């Protein structure tokens, strides 16, 4: 489907989460191109061009939360304890962490204490060794989330064994104020090249989180200038930043001579000599440039989907395009504090025309209709029995009957708030409105730009329905259901990610129980059960799964899109002719 939305709608709010694609065990991606190493075997050398519209918001590892940025930097400039393997076609293996700076991926008997041993000889770009203290300092920065906002700080702050203040925030306030430093020093300890993390509850997913996010990355204390370092890259990977990074324009990566490939196995081929990131280029221009393939544009890859108006132009270039399901599910959430009658919500869900929506977004190359908020590729996924019964095109007549039976006054006014700014999404919302209006609603569309965050975060806002999008942080429904529907994140001033202000004690309790399940499949089944409960309340309306229809330059080799990098192009394998 579209561009900005892909990540910006998803990154809906404070704790917006996106990152890893899904799939712990299942299969993914009805890929229609060939998904193997494409464009021939990659060789070293050449200049790769990375075209994108949406600028990186943060290049500070602790602040990154956008899947694309996490993986582009992870394959080039930032190394971590663990990572996902590159070029791995088996979805399960692709999402199984392998060691990076760690000598191995450890196990933990109780899930609460994790001890990792570091490799020798991994160096920063200034030649100093990456040591245990760097990892310890790195994760400590997540606690200064008021200064270093934007990152997935909730994982270290909730799991590390540090007491909480009365307001629920950790007693450790980060490395700048150093308040509660002793508490942090107990939770994360260094012994030679062994680092130990102590959690307050079992967290079997820890290696997944390390590999799927950057918040546990090392950071050099002597290089830390706080928020001013937002676009500063101090590399320990095969590349380093040449000059400075300019937001909206991009930057250029060149080879890092301190990087020793012998310490790095199976992931970073680091084929191109340079990688240039060009930000802010409109999708249609990206497509046009790659199709034309003039000069360096023939070496280009992108994270932006081909837009429907360009489909016909891209069609003949089959060996330069790929089409895969993305990890992102888009959905609507009724505001439970305003639309209190479950029958009205049911009528909304019944009248929702997902088929028309998909059509307006550009058809089956843009999206497929969804029947659950959990991506079917996540481990343990079960079909949603409520939404899969509603026809994809909706049933306005049935919806009208529900409304009539419920005895509500018609036309029933509905204000649908979404993040505007994209004409295609505007058209798609027009389709939703049409279906709802047929069922007896009177829908007013309310596209907002950046004020969206301000509005949706207020518990007393007057919108009836919101739009949202979500992708799991790492391959587990544990990073979907609890983040979106746990009522304990609601406060008098904030709704967190629970825009619909969904409150159900049974769901909250079930979430707590599911968190203790260590088997990924069983956990997934538990979350699907919770999903069913929420669906019975019509706490959300699933819409579609976004598809990635990507084009790349004709000189690009070794091109891979796997679950390891959330279906974005893998910079660990790519090369140019």
């Amino acid at each position, binding site marked *: 489907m579209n561009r900005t939305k892909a990540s910006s709608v998803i990154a809906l709010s*404070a704790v917006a989460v996106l990152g890893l694609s899904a799939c712990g065990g299942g299969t993914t991606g009805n890929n229609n191109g060939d998904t193997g190493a494409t464009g021939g075997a990659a060789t070293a050398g050449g200049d790769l061009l990375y075209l994108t519209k949406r600028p990186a918001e943060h290049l500070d590892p602790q602040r990154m939360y956008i899947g694309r940025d996490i993986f582009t930097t992870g394959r080039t400039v930032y190394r971590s304890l663990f990572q996902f393997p590159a070029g791995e076609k088996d979805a399960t293996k692709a999402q199984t962490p392998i060691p990076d700076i760690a000598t191995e991926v450890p196990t933990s008997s109780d899930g609460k204490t994790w001890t990792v041993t570091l490799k020798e000889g991994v160096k920063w770009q200034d030649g100093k060794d990456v040591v245990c203290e760097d990892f310890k300092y790195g994760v400590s920065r997540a606690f200064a*989330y008021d200064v270093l906002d934007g990152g997935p700080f909730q994982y270290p702050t909730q799991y590390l064994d540090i007491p909480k203040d009365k307001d629920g925030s950790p007693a450790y306030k980060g490395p*700048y104020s150093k308040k509660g430093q002793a508490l942090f020093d107990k939770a994360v300890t260094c012994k030679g090249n062994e680092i130990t993390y102590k959690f307050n509850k079992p967290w079997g997913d820890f290696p997944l989180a390390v590999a799927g996010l950057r918040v546990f990355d090392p950071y050099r204390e002597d290089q830390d200038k706080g*928020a001013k370092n937002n676009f500063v890259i101090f590399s320990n990977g095969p590349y380093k930043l040449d000059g400075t990074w300019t937001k909206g324009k991009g930057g250029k990566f060149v080879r890092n001579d301190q990087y020793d490939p012998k310490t790095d196995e199976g992931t970073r081929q680091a084929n191109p000599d340079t990688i240039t990131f060009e930000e802010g280029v409109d999708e249609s221009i990206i497509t046009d440039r790659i199709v034309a393939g003039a000069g360096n544009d023939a070496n280009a890859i992108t994270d932006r989907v081909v837009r429907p108006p360009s489909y016909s132009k891209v069609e003949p270039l089959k060996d330069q395009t790929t089409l895969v399901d993305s990890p992102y599910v888009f959905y609507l959430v009724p505001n439970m504090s305003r639309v209190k009658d479950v029958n009205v919500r049911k009528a909304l869900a019944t009248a929702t025309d997902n088929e028309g929506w998909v059509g307006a977004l550009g058809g089956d190359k843009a999206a497929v209709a969804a029947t659950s908020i959990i991506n079917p590729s996540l481990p343990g996924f079960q079909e949603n029995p409520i939404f899969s019964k509603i026809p994809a095109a909706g049933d306005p007549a049935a919806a009208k009957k529900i409304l009539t039976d419920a005895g509500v006054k018609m036309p029933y006014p509905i204000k649908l708030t979404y993040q505007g700014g994209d004409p295609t999404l505007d058209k798609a919302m027009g389709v939703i409105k049409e279906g709802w209006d047929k069922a007896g609603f009177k829908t007013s569309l309310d596209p907002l730009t950046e*004020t969206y965050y*301000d509005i949706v975060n207020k518990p007393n806002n007057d919108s009836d329905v919101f739009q949202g999008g979500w992708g799991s942080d790492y391959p587990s429904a544990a990073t979907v259901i609890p983040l979106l529907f746990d009522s304990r994140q609601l406060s008098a001033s*904030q709704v967190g990610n629970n825009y619909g202000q969904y409150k159900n004690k049974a769901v909250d309790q079930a979430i707590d129980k599911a968190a203790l399940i260590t088997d990924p499949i069983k956990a997934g089944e538990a979350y699907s059960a919770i999903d069913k409960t929420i669906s019975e309340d019509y706490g959300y309306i699933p819409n579609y799964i976004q598809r990635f229809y990507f084009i790349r330059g004709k000189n690009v080799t070794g091109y891979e899109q796997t679950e390891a990098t959330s279906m974005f192009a893998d910079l660990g394998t790519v090369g140019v002719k």
Partner: protein
Amino acid sequence: MYAYVIRRLFSGLVMLIVMSFATFLMFFNGAVDPVRYTCGKACGVPGVLERNRAMLGYDDPVPVQYAKFVKGVFVGRDFPDDPALRKSAPETIARCDAPCLGYSPKENSTVTSMLAERAPISASLAVAAFIMWIAFGVGGGIVAALYKGRWPDKLIVGTALIFYAFPTFFIGLFLYKFVAIKWELTPQPVYTAFTEDPVAWAMGLFLPGLTLALFYIAGYIRLTRSYVIEAASEDYLRTAKAKGLDKRTILWKHTMRSALTPLITLAALDFAGLLGGAIITETVFNYQGLGKLAVDAATTWDLPVTVGIVLTLSTIVILANIIVDVLYAVIDPRVKLA
């Protein structure tokens, strides 16, 4: 002369103060808590709103905020301005050197440095557009006037009007998608710094410059044409003819001097306006100039950046007006600076 310049500067300063204060009232006294527009989606992170409010001093009354801003312009400023914090945790303090136009917590950068980074791009674009619009606009206007009422006149004025009738972003996108990418008739409109490669700089500026120039060309053709025709009907041109001067001298020395003099001041003002960035053109061509920065800041509600740009652009306009007034006195002997 000096007295005039000083008086003019003084009145410009008064204007600047009134204008900047009005801007503060508009943005900080509105219906919306300004701090909500300093952090985007990070506003939802616990503590961020409070931190930004304290950091940017938004808890002060508007006049105090204004005073602090003005002070920052002259001596620089710390965000937050907290001496204790400067000692204990310098990482959390953003130093903004004079002339400090504010600090954007969202971009983690001072507004001044953002402006300084973008200004050369907008200036380049302004220069490119200026050259083309003067060449086509004034040149076309002169030709149209010389052939007044005949086909070259109608062709020039008509073409310009048609270009003018289509919205700028439509023309820009059309040029970009068809002329540059599809037909590859012109170089790719990608910005290269002048210092890096002057040739690439000029080539990349061609299409955006043309797009921007087209917006002005129609107006300048019409103006030039009417000024030349007006000047040609002046009595002193009859005198020049009666003196026995040849046509060339009459046209280039006598007619053009009086026709183009008012154009110089107009062009200077328009050029100054462009220095502040061309929002639409920069957006279409992804030129990261002041216009793009402005529109990004405005649409993502980065309030400190927006305010900083508004004030900078207004200052440019005020200054340009002063310069043009003085310039006019230099080129038109009839204007007395009293």
